[in-house]
């Protein structure tokens, strides 16, 4: 019976180690600076999940779990391939997107400033003629 006790302890220890590695990988997925890092983390999660399924299959004695593991491996592979296609078709890195967004924000600010200036000029021009209403429209059109 000693062997069986050792085996039970080994299964428990394996589950604990797998949980630890699962948590570490999830931390990388949450923190991961770029999208490919997160995809790699998800790929790794699939491998760890297959490990979990194998351990649970041994623990419960249902060998049907191995079909689940194979199917999960297939789905994980297809998911990674699809994500790689997505990275390729998006065609830019996080840095590119950041610079683009910053550029767009600067442009928008500049445009708004120019528009405000033009509106103000128009308002000062129209104020003597139409009085209060011209100033009100000038204020209203300001972003």
């Amino acid at each position: 019976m000693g062997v069986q006790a050792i085996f039970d302890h080994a299964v428990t220890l394996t589950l604990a180690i797998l949980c630890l590695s699962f948590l570490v990988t999830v931390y990388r997925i949450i923190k991961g600076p770029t999208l490919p890092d997160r995809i790699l983390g998800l790929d790794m999660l699939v491998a760890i999940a297959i490990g979990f399924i194998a351990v649970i299959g041994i623990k419960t004695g249902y060998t049907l779990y191995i079909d689940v593991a194979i199917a999960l491996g297939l789905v994980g592979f297809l998911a990674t391939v699809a994500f790689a296609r997505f990275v390729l078709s998006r065609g830019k890195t996080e840095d590119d997107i950041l610079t683009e967004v910053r550029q767009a924000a600067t442009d928008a600010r500049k445009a708004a400033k120019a528009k405000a200036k033009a509106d103000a000029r128009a308002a000062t021009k129209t104020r003597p003629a139409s009085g209060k209403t011209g100033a009100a429209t000038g204020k209203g059109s300001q972003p």
Partner: protein
Amino acid sequence: MNEIVTLVSAAFLLIGSLFALVASVGLLRLPDLYTRMHAASKAGTMGACLMLIALAVHSGDVGTVSRALAGVVFFLLTAPVSSHLLAKAAYSVGYRLHKSSVRDEMAPEVEK
């Protein structure tokens, strides 16, 4: 005989889970995407395969063993393909190597 099989299965389980742990620690510690890919595609695959083999050894009947081996072969075939696709996509989109990299002989090819 039965006891030896049980012990071997337990050893495979422990070693496989340790490799999975090593792979995830590598994912955490290594500096950039490409070096992390080394950890995930080698140690991670190895860990999952070892645990499937442990299941095969433990069950011992033909159907389960053949299905487990099919799973192992399938995993060994797909893991390099997916990591290769990801590396290729990431490089061609423009994710650069970490600054500790010493050479990049692919750079002139992409700029062309």
